[in-house]
Structures are given as C-alpha cells and as structure tokens.
C-alpha cells in the first residue's frame, strides 16, 4: 500500500468515526479493528501488515485529526516493548487476550527485568521460578520498574534452571501485577521523587500458558524486547529545536544578561550536534522504511543521552543565579509522578533527571559495547562466566 493509499484509508476511517463526536472507547476499538492501530502489525491484530516506516504517517494523521489518545504516555512500555514481544514470541492465545486491551490503553504494563545484582548483566538475574503443577512459583526482587504501581500486568524474566550457564536458564513470563505476592515499593531518586519502584515477588503464581517462548529460551525473548526499546528511543522525528535543545535555546533567548561568547559557542556546539542527531535519525528511519537494517537505536540513544545531559547542564550555567533554584512544585518533596517531565518542570529537575538517560534502558557503556561488537565487528569482552553454570559464578 502506498502512503497515498494509506492516507485515503485513514481519512475514510476518520470520516466514518468523527473524533469529535465518537465515544473514545468506541473510537479506539474501531481503529484497532480497522488495522490502523499499528499498521506494521498483521491484520486481525490492529494492523495491515505494512512496513514499520509507514506508522509515523498514520500516527500523525490521527493526531492532527484530534483522535483520542490511547494512554500512549502511561503505557509506553506496553506499546513500545510488550506488544512487539507478544506479537513476535507470544502464543496466538496471548495475542488474542492482550494486544487489543493493551493498545486501547485499558491494561497498563510494566517490565520486571532489572535486579539489584543484575543491571547491565541482566542475564545474571537471580529471581527464581519453580514449576508447581500447571503453574510457576516466583520469588525474588526486581528494581527500576517504572509504572509498577499503575500496572495491571508485567513482562518478567526469571531463572528456571540455575545449573546451566546464565543465558540458558532463563524463562520469560507474563505476570499479573494484582497477584497478592507482588509488593511494589517506591524507589526515590535524586530528583526527590519516585518514578520507579522496587518490586518484591513472594510466591507469585503464574499459570504456564502465560509463559512466552520455551522454558530456558527467555534470554532470546528478552533481547527481542530490549531491541524494541532501543528502536523506540530517539526513533521518532523531531523538528529543529525539538526536545531539550529547544528548551535550552529558549532559555538562552530569555536570559540575555547571562550571555557570554564562551556559553554561546558551547550552546552552538550542542545545537550543531542536535542537528546532526536529527539528520542521523531521519536517515535511520529512511533505512528502516526501505527495509535496510541499520544499527539504529544504539547510536541514537548514546547521542540522545549525552545531548540531554550536556544541554541541561549548560542550561543551569546560562541561567546563572536562577539556575541555583529548584522552585517548580513540589521541589524536593517525595511524590510519584506519572511520567518523565522534561518540559513542565524547571532546569534543575531536567539536569538531575537527564543523568538517568545514560543508565536507563541500557547504560551508555553497554551500548558502546554493542556498537563496537555488532556494528564494527570488534571482539567481545573475554567472558569468564559464559560457560560456567550460573550458580557457580561469583557475585
């Protein structure tokens, strides 16, 4: 289907379901049924089996038409990571059960992957899942779980066989966050608030049909999920002066008293890098659209994190004495925000929060390894734990 044809199809749908007058829930389910939810998904599952590159076009047409939102902000993990994983690795039963309510924003998802002892080395995870009849019994601790306190379901990786090397003893599950054994506790971060959670799992029971992929094959499935995450990051087009760059450019234009040639050149260096990132992202999307596989996500995320951090740090210098004040509500007071808010809060928040950008979703160190090994073909790190049973590796 050509972009033009697709555009017609969307316009036809909008004519039939005027956003202004159509009930939100009805609109969303109709859009799903029409295959216009995510056009790169197969027919019958909210898509039309088109190329991924066409999705942004559809998205923007609906946005422009004022179509109702499907909780894309609070359900980012569900839409960005869970859905493609269930589509690719899940059972037909799981697709039927989960994809539509997920896309419609009726069921919110979170991700139970990282652990205190398994961050970059996710495959070293220690949460155990033991079979018990038709169910699995899960015990362990997860951390850095965003949205766990709002989530209905979670994607979960647990160790089902400690006696084999770490990558081979992991299994991937869909867990019910309303299970009594799930204890969600806020994890306060340096901004003062708690975006994330620690999740303690005590005898959580998961029916075997909620397993994704084969027993012991969870590492492969988890990598599928994480690749989607990296594609999602920095994967969408920004206008010039979009994102953090626009914010800092505005504060430059507002804080004339602080202008010095030195701050100006640093701003322009970052402006140039922002433009470079924009053009790089555009080319990566064109490669994706034309079916050329690109290293995509990894380099974009590296750049996104560095730019956010350098820009938000420079912003404080540009603001001078005002940069020393943290006056946007609620200041340091502990709270549970629904999302990262790089626009609504002040420069101090942005500076501190941006520090997480090079850690969350794969540290910049791990991403550089990925680029060096998978893109440049340089040798992997010497792996001392690769062929050793998980329970014999020192930790």
């Amino acid at each position, binding site marked *: 289907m050509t972009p033009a044809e697709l555009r017609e199809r969307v316009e036809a749908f909008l004519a039939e379901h005027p956003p202004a007058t159509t009930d939100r829930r009805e609109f969303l389910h109709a859009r799903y049924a029409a295959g216009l939810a995510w056009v790169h998904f197969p027919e019958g599952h909210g898509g039309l089996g088109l190329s991924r590159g066409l999705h942004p076009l559809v998205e923007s047409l609906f946005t422009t038409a004022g179509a109702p939102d499907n909780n894309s902000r609070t359900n980012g993990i569900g839409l960005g990571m869970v859905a493609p994983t269930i589509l690719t690795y899940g059972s037909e039963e799981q697709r039927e059960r989960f994809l539509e309510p997920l896309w419609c924003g009726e069921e919110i998802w979170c991700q139970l992957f*990282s652990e205190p002892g*398994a*961050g*970059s*080395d996710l495959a*070293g995870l220690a949460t155990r899942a033991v079979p018990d009849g038709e169910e699995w019994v899960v015990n362990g601790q997860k*951390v*850095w779980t965003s949205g766990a306190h709002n989530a209905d379901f979670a994607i979960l990786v647990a160790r089902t066989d400690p006696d084999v090397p770490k990558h081979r003893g992991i299994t991937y599950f869909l867990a019910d966050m309303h299970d009594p054994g799930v204890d969600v506790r806020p*994890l*306060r*971060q*340096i901004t*003062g608030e708690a975006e994330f959670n620690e999740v303690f799992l005590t005898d959580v029971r998961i029916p075997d049909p909620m397993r994704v992929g084969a027993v012991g094959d969870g590492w492969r499935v988890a990598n599928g999920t994480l690749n989607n995450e990296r594609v999602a990051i920095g994967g969408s087009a920004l206008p010039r002066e979009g994102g953090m760059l626009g914010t800092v450019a505005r504060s430059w234009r507002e804080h004339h008293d602080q202008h*010095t*040639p*030195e*701050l100006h050149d640093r701003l322009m260096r970052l402006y140039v890098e922002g433009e470079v990132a924009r053009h790089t992202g555009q080319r990566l999307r064109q490669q994706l659209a034309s079916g050329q596989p690109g290293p995509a996500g990894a380099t974009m995320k590296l750049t996104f994190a560095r730019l956010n*951090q350098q820009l938000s*740090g420079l912003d*404080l*210098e540009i603001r*001078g*004495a*005002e*940069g*020393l*004040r*943290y*006056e946007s509500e609620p*200041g*340091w*007071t*502990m709270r549970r925000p629904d999302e990262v808010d790089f626009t609504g809060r002040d420069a*101090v928040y942005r*500076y*501190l929060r941006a*520090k*997480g950008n*090079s*850690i969350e979703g794969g*540290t*910049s*160190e791990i991403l*550089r390894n990925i680029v060096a090994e998978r893109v440049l073909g340089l040798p992997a*790190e010497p*792996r*001392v*734990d690769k062929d*050793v049973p998980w329970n014999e*590796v*020192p*930790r």
Partner: protein
Amino acid sequence: MTAPTTGPNPDPSPDELVLLDTDDDRDLRATVAGYLAARCPSTAVAAVYDGDRSVVAPLWRGLATELGLAGLLVPESYAGAGATPRDAAVVLEELGRSVAPVPFLTSSVIAATTLAHASTDAGRSLLADLAEGGRTVALVVPLTTAFDADVPVVQGHGQVHVRSVAGALDADTLLVPVAAGDGIELHAVPAGDARIEPVVSLDMSRELADVTVDPTAGTVAVEGDAAAGVRAGLLAGTTLLASEQVGIAQWCLQATVGHLQERRQFGRVVGGFQALKHRLADLYTAVEGASATARFAAAALAADPHGEEARIAAHTAAAWCSDVAVLAAEEAVQLHGGIGMTWEHPAHLYLKRAKADQLALGLPGHHRARLGELVGLTV
C-alpha cells in the same frame, strides 16, 4: 620509540610555594575529618533536603567554637587564630569531602576577610565576635558574584530585595554593601531586622535565601570605599571554594573506585573493564591537578593577598576545579549505575553541591576570560 627527555631545569625556584601537607596540615585535617565523621553523616545532610535542618546548628557551633574554626583566618589581634589560607584550604577540603552544611565559607572566609577591612569600632567588634564564634556573618550579595565584578550594591529607599544569597539563613548578622556617595559602605544589620526567605535550592547543603533589607538599617562596619574589602572577601572565597571542590572531587573518585572494586557483573569485577579504567585514570589525573592547583592558589594568596599572582592562581583554580568537581560527581553517578541515581546513595549530595559550586562566584568561562586579560591574551 623513545620520548624526548627534558633538558636541565630552567626554573628551580628553590623558594617555590609548598604544595604538600605539612605535619600541622595533617593534624588539622585529622581533627576536622574526625569531627565530621562523627557528627555529619550523609543521612543527616540528605535530611536537610526534606526540611530537617537539625544537623546544622550543633555541627556549626562545634566546628566554630570547639575546634575554633570560626576565626581561623582572623588576625590574633582580633581573637582569631591568625592562620593562613593554606590552613583554610585544608579545612575546606574536608568540609567538601562530607558536603557539610555549615557557613564556614560564607562567614569565616568571605565575611571575615571582608571585615578585616573594618574601619569602625562596630566593624572591629563584629569581627572579634565572629572570630570567637559568637556571631555568624553573611555578605549580602548573590552567590554568583565574581570577585572581580562590580560589587552589587543595595540601593534605593525602603525595603530592597537581594536574591540568592548564601549563608544568610545561618547568619545572625548581615553585611550589606550600600551605595554611599560614589563609594560603597558596609552595614552590619541584625538578621532579625531583615526578611530572610529560604529558597528551595539545587544545593540544600548551602541553602540560599532571598534577603529584603533597608539600606539605612544597621551600623556602619566599613566606611568610605568598602569595595576593596568585598573584593578581598570574594577573592578569598573564590580561592578557597576550589579546595572545597577538591574535597568533593576526591570523595567522588574514591567512592566510585571503591564501588567498582566491589561490584561484579558478567562474573568480573566491574572496575576491571578497561573503558572504565581509562575514564577513572583520566579523572584521577584531573583531580590530582585540581588538588595541586587549589593548594597553589591558597599558598599564593597566603604569600601575597594583594599580588597579581594570587589573582592569576584564583582564576586558574576556579576555572579548573569547578569543572573537575562537576565531572567527578557526574562520573560518580554514572559509574555507580542505577544506585547512583537513588536518594539513598550519597552521590547526589555531591552532584548538587558540585553543580552549585560551579555557578558560584563566577562561571569557569568568566574566570578563563579574566585570566586571559591578566596574562595578556585577549580577543
């Protein structure tokens, strides 16, 4: 391939400034460090961010009077210790190392050095009170004021507003620069006679306040042209802030190395991964440079507080140490992984202090530009 070796020493300067700790320095450091270890846990500093300032007053009283640090830089003739900026540098390295929420820099360095220019009995007795720890004083200028900029004076009638003042919350006496004819005089104003509103600050361990004061209030502490005194105070503050930044940077480097020696991933000690080793080696080099440079600046100020060498050294130390402390704190947060992003881990206290210090008393770029003027390199 062999490196060019160096020729004979062109500048042995046998009487060069000493940049090592003396035995006295080591004793002073041990005393201050021990006191802080016992009375200033990082949990107490973090509590300040949640509005619990209970650690502040007793800690400062103890440092000021028990250890007698309040008057460290005050001449003995004013009941001070008559010590030099070299000694204050040692103290500030330790205060930075534990991000101590005390007004030593604002009262015992900036205000005390300014008051050394006191020209009235009121001013002189205030300095003596400060030296004994009886009074804590804050100079009422924005924290971002550079020592070589025009002194921001309070002028006009009635209540005048000064934003983002450091040390005012802890002070019982404010030192207010007031326009007097074509000069500046300093008024000593009881804190109770001014409005001092706390500001939610990036660095709550040096919490700012907005001060509203009547320029005609208080007694005159320095008459005529007090600008020289204010500049001397801010020069001392700039020079010694660099030592605080050294303490911050050293803590961050040490904590990060310690964490990476313990933390295991992929069955290996994380500190053994070469990319991290190289970053830490570069950071170590930068921090070593910062500590030598801050000490040089303090020694140069001690040797001749009015000399050009002291100003050159202050600009150099401010430009370098400000950025190194921020780099060290940012690397600490990053290399601790997720744990460095949590409230529970103290790294954030150092990040916030380091970033606030970078903006304090003139930006690094400002100091580089001024240094250029002093050494004859201009645009």
